[in-house]
């Protein structure tokens, strides 16, 4: 399970850095200006003080002017740097978020059900944010501190190569130390990200399932689970703090050790006449300046580890293959008649084959009902027709064009699927209808709601189509939600319609409303309906009975009823359940 995606995370980081390379360069230059200005100030102050000793008032005035100018230059550089480094971070996060989100949109429903919205949220919020620190300060700190380190090393070498050698001898120790940290941080920081995601998942599921929690009085169980998860999270965070709390002062301590060694060695070299006191003081000052950036670099390293752990999770998500890859050179299909054909289609997951060598042609305008037991392959046929899945072998075609060769825009304009669960998004009823056609006018939205038979109940709402349906449509009944979902299909106005058990949970009067609406909707379109209810089958031109991935019966409802196969048996059992009139 502990698979690491280091290459993936580094590739992502490199990509962002590449995009931001000019701004990062600008930031580095600005930091150099700012640092030079800060370093120049003490020297200038010294000059002003010397002028005072010499009694040169004119020089003091000039010095004051220069000092103010340098201070202003420093301020300008600092302001611009802070602004630009903020831009680097925010633009980087923007890119990461959009890239990940677009990718998620292409992933399969099955994958996302297992991945859960909670983890997706964790990736796109807290994980992405953990990269901000590295982007805004880390990279620039890395550049400037490394330059500083090299500069100091050169100066040390020029003063006394022997003493410099003593200091450099400690570097391998520092590197070993950093390696120790890295080995642990890699694991711990990943645990922190996972624990964070697990918190998000628990909160998200509890919020989504609050009805069940209340109904079963299961709050205590939820609290226990939260205590466990927040405990795990706290432990992981504490461990990560512990590791860095060892690394940072540890590197600082190496600086003190270096100073002590330099002092003792310096004493001997002064005795030997190889070093002056002034030089010893200088070496000591530079030792401090050598180890300070090292501590700063450890901060950068910490940010890098944090970011890497987060980027790994993002890279894992980005590595998940989209189920239906877009065509590189799509065949344009501005207008579709609506002929759907399955050409020797085989489909399965793993070694389980659901469909084998299916050949089927649905002429434009025909309404086909798919029947059969659960798991027989009805949903598979429907999803292949709507290209939610691609066949393993063979091809599904619309007007003779392989669905895989159509652009996403053309495909979705011509083929629309209404699924089992009438999911409503937070927002108004009109917003929800516009998921069918984002550019629909108010009049078109109303017309589609009327066509779907949803208008009577909407007209009775105080705010009409602008009524907020609240989280997951909590304020509408199941039937009302389904009517709104149906209106989406009307406004989308496709040539081919795929219905997955769309009318399963309605009471009869509403179902009749839906039946009429469906009849209107299906008029002049090709339709593929998965039905469990006789009432839905009633409006079909043609019935396909699917069993074990094979079409066993194919014909008009009348023909099949007379043929006496499984449709006839199913039809009889329906009749019985509908004939509630003779019910005890």
């Amino acid at each position, binding site marked *: 399970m502990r698979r690491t995606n280091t290459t993936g995370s580094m590739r992502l980081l490199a990509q962002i850095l590449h995009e931001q390379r000019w701004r990062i360069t600008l930031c580095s230059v600005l930091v150099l200006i700012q640092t030079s200005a800060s370093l120049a100030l003490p020297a200038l102050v010294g000059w002003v003080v010397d002028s005072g000793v010499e009694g040169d008032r004119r020089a003091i*005035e000039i010095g004051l002017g220069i000092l103010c100018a*340098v201070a202003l230059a420093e301020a300008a550089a600092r302001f611009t740097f802070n602004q630009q480094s903020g831009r680097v971070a925010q633009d980087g996060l923007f890119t990461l978020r959009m890239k990940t989100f677009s990718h998620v949109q292409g992933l399969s429903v099955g994958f996302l059900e297992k991945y859960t919205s909670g983890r997706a949220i964790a990736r796109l919020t807290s994980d992405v944010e953990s990269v901000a620190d590295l982007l805004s300060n880390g990279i620039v700190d890395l550049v400037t501190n490394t330059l500083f380190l090299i500069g100091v090393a050169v100066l040390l070498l020029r003063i006394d190569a022997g003493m410099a050698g003593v200091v450099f001898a400690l570097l391998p120790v520092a590197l070993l130390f950093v390696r120790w940290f890295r080995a642990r941080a890699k694991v711990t920081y990943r645990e922190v990200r996972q624990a964070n995601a697990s918190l998000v998942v628990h909160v*998200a599921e509890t919020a989504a399932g609050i009805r069940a929690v209340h109904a079963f009085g299961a709050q205590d169980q939820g609290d226990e689970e939260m205590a466990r998860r927040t405990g795990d999270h*706290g432990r992981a965070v504490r461990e990560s703090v512990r590791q860095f709390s060892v690394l940072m002062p540890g590197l600082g301590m190496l600086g003190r050790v270096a100073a002590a060694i330099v002092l003792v060695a310096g004493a001997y070299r002064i005795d030997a006449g190889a070093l002056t006191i002034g030089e010893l003081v200088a070496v000591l000052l530079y030792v401090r300046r050598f180890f300070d950036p090292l501590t700063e670099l450890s901060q950068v390293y910490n940010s890098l580890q944090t970011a890497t752990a987060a980027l790994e999770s993002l890279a894992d998500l980005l590595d998940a293959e989209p189920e239906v890859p877009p065509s590189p050179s799509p065949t344009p299909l501005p207008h579709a008649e609506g002929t759907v054909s399955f050409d020797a289609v085989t489909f399965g997951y793993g070694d389980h084959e659901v469909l084998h060598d299916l050949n089927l042609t649905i002429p434009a305008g025909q309404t086909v009902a798919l029947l059969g037991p659960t798991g027989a392959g009805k949903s598979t046929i429907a999803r292949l027709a709507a290209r939610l899945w691609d066949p393993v072998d063979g091809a599904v075609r619309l007007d003779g064009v392989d669905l895989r060769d159509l652009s996403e825009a053309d495909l979705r304009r011509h083929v629309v699927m209404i699924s089992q669960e009438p999911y409503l998004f937070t927002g108004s009823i009109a917003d929800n209808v516009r998921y069918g056609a984002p550019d629909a006018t108010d009049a078109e939205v109303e017309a589609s709601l009327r066509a779907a038979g949803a208008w009577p109940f909407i007209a009775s709402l105080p705010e009409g189509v602008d009524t907020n349906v*609240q989280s997951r449509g909590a304020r509408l009944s199941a039937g009302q939600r389904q009517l709104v979902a149906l209106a989406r299909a009307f406004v989308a106005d496709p040539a081919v319609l795929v219905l997955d058990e769309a009318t399963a949970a309605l009471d009869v009067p509403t179902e009749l409303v839906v039946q009429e609406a469906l009849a209107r909707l299906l008029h002049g379109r090709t339709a593929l309906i998965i039905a469990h209810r006789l009432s839905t089958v009633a409006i079909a031109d043609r019935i396909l009975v699917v069993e074990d991935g094979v079409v066993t019966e194919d014909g008009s409802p009348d023909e099949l009823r007379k043929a006496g196969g499984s449709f006839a048996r199913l039809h009889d059992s329906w009749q019985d359940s509908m004939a509630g009139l003779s019910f005890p």
Partner: protein
Amino acid sequence: MLGDLRPHWRGLAVSSVAGLGVVATALAVPPLTGHAVDAAGGGDRDQVLLLASALLVIGVVEAVLIFVRRYTASGYAIKVEQDLRRRTFFHLQRLPLHVHDSMPSGQVISRLVGDLSQLRRFLAFAGPSLIMNALQVVGALILMARLHLPLTALTVVLYLPTVYAATAFMRRYKTLARNVRDRNGDVATSVEQSVAGIRIIKSLGRGPHVTSLFEGRVEDLRGASLLAVRARSSFLTTLSLVPNLNLAIVASAGAWGVADGQLTAGDLAAFLTALLILSGPMAMFGNNLASVEEANAAYDRVAELLDTPREILQSSDASELPPTDAVELSFHDVCFRFDGSGEWVLRGVDLTVRAGETIALVGSTGSGKTTLAMLVPRLYDVTSGSVRIGGVDVRELTAHALADNVAVALEEPTLFSRSVRVNLTLGRVDATDEEIDAALRAAGAEFVFELPQGLDTRIGEQGVSLSGGQRQRVALARAIIAQPSVLVLDDPLSAVDVTTEQRVHAAMHEVLRNVTTLIVAHRPSTLMLADRVAWLEDGRVRAVGTHAELLQHDEYRNLLAAPTPELVR
């Protein structure tokens, strides 16, 4: 926020003392080094060795103290974070449903996770560092005052603009930081919706539409963040510009003083050195003050959630009601409307379900069937009237007693990303394997036995995904396992195929015999389970009777009768 810290004063004290120790050791190093250099110059090797050893020891002590300071600080910060998270979650789970309905999930998540993490980081790092900064500033000012009072006074006056800038910044930054946190919650909401609704998005091919909506949210977040960055940049610049200009002016004024002979060059040099000590903490102040406001905004968001009243409260003299085999369920003049909307959903429902009886609720879409059912487990509370179990108003029952007596299976079943067993025993944790087994068979959910790890198979996140019909049957089994005296079923088999439905109905007859049951029915087949039917119309009970009796009414027949077979062309 301070109240949340009080229990952790020990950790706070240890880390503060360690922090002071760190400052002290850092101050001890320069004089020791100075002496050591003098000793080296004087050829006193023993003294050099001694002082070098002292420096080594100080280095070790310093490192240990830094470790202690950081580790203990994060220790109590993590505890505060965990306490608050548990408390907020506790509260969240007990908020009434209508509050949940109007609360975007992303906002809830960002408050419970992101905001609290932000608070922890502040308490562990920026908070203590701010206190250190303040101490360092005071120390430096005392040192300066002892060296030269007039120049210190000049410095204090010249530093005044930073005080003004800080107050203005903090006022402004609080709003900006709050905005960033809020926009963050919006992004989370947007992600949640797009994943939860992925089937719709995919089948309608609205990926680009949803992506552009998401882009809008992300743009807003970026915009809010950049405004905060801008405010922060200006403030940090002020905090660097003022000390530098002050240095220029004080140095020049001092130099004039030296030229006039009022000051020696040595005094001035010492004063300017002390002035440089001041600029260190000043530079850190900016980021730390920004963190104060960020933590403040985060804390406010959490506190708002904690302050949301839990309206459905247990009455002070709540009753226990030991679950018994059969108990009467009754509705007395029940009226209900969702708050804020003027529409009455229920307008005076009177209905009695006798002990052990099963009543089906029948009515057209929007007639109030589901709402009436949801009043029994108090998912919502009546606006007026009462719902009674065994003669006791459900509002008078302890939460515990209510949960023990009532179990539900809803049309849209909620399962959590845990094992099947955890999901099944939500209503009764101590159910035996035999009881679970029997309930699964009664609900037609034998497929559970075929899952890779049986009852211990994880479902949902990183687990097995179940079909809609399978989920409904697990939810039904869950309600049976709870062994309630009152069972509320809302069209619990709508996504189950006909054959399975018939099989489940046969088994359910046995289960329902001794349980008072209210079942929302949309189809004649569901009525097989009911003893009597309550026919709802426009939020009132139109009639109660057996299915056969009610069939006398044409309207009722139209409600349930199938489209005629002639429709089949």
